[in-house]
């Protein structure tokens, strides 16, 4: 029996980390999946969460498409259409440090066929940067997909706050892989 999903790396945020970087990613799996619970240190409702494939932030290789709902829009969804392409887009969101205490955001992303050298890479993403106090007009739930227009195999990934503060201690992350 070949186990389908396995955890390759996991940890908790400590010491004011502004990024978690996975390097030397095992190329013997088929698909990568990330599960992150995090909160940003910035004094705002929502902090952008960036995912840089192979840690690339130049060359205009990223595009985004999806939808999000803001807490101030009474449930009306808006489109996220960042066809740029751009160098380092805000893929998803986590809550900032002004939302209700002890609240973390759940984030999930899936990158099919990450080790391929035939195709560019596309990732599913979703995040729930809500504000349980109910007053956060900038809280957003997001379903967004991202294409990275490069055919190189993905050997490293950086998740980071894009230079806006750091991850509050106590959040956690998992990088898993589907065989």
């Amino acid at each position, binding site marked *: 029996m070949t*186990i389908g999903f396995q955890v390759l790396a996991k940890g908790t945020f400590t010491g004011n980390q502004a990024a978690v970087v996975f390097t030397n990613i095992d190329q013997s799996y088929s698909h990568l999946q990330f599960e992150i619970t995090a909160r940003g240190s910035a004094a705002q409702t929502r902090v952008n969460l960036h995912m840089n494939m192979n840690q690339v932030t130049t060359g205009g290789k990223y595009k985004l498409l999806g939808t999000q709902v803001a807490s101030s829009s009474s449930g009306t969804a808006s489109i996220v259409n960042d066809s740029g392409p751009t160098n380092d887009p805000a893929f998803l969101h986590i809550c900032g440090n002004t939302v209700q205490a002890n609240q973390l955001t759940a984030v999930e992303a899936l990158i099919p066929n990450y080790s391929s050298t035939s195709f560019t890479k596309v990732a599913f993403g979703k995040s729930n940067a809500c504000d349980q106090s109910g007053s956060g007009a900038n809280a957003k739930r997001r379903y967004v997909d991202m294409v990275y227009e490069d055919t190189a195999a993905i050997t490293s990934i950086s998740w980071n706050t894009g230079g806006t503060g750091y991850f509050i201690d106590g959040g956690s992350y998992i990088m898993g892989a589907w065989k």
Partner: protein
Amino acid sequence: MAEATELIAEQVVSGSSTNQITFSSIPQTHDDLKFIMQYMSTDTSGSWEFDYLTTHINGDTTNDYYQQGFMRIRSNNSPLPKMQTGFQSRISYDSIGTSLNGQTNPGICEFNIPRYSDSGRMKEGTARFAWLSSTASDWTNGYCLTAPIAFWVYTPTGAITSISFKGLAANWKAGSKFSLYGISNS
């Protein structure tokens, strides 16, 4: 509740003559099935840079046996997301990147089938799929899309023993990958 996952089978396309990917003789020993897929087609002569991921269950192409719905976001936000209705002869998701006009980006799909071996009820499943073109005009014309929430129904009640995926107009491009996992709850 613990959950165990097993790789049942994986198919990676080589060459340019594969029109259909079929997973047959699916073992009936798991609770649920999950597919994770990334794919392109070889088509260079169609009208658009995308094509339809066409799914058939148990080789069944009977008209009106399938129904699907999804919240589809187009890159020009038109039309606004809406749920499709109506029965048809397949599950059909417009998520394949073709090779027309030098388009280079693949589509991706996650496809889930709970209780696939149950022989006493219709089958319902969920999916998520996306295609984000490498061609700028596809974005302005609204051809790029993502469907973060998709559902389908297959009305016959027999156990699912085979699933096939094909593009309507062309063959799969080399490097396309289709993975099938079994999920067991214990």
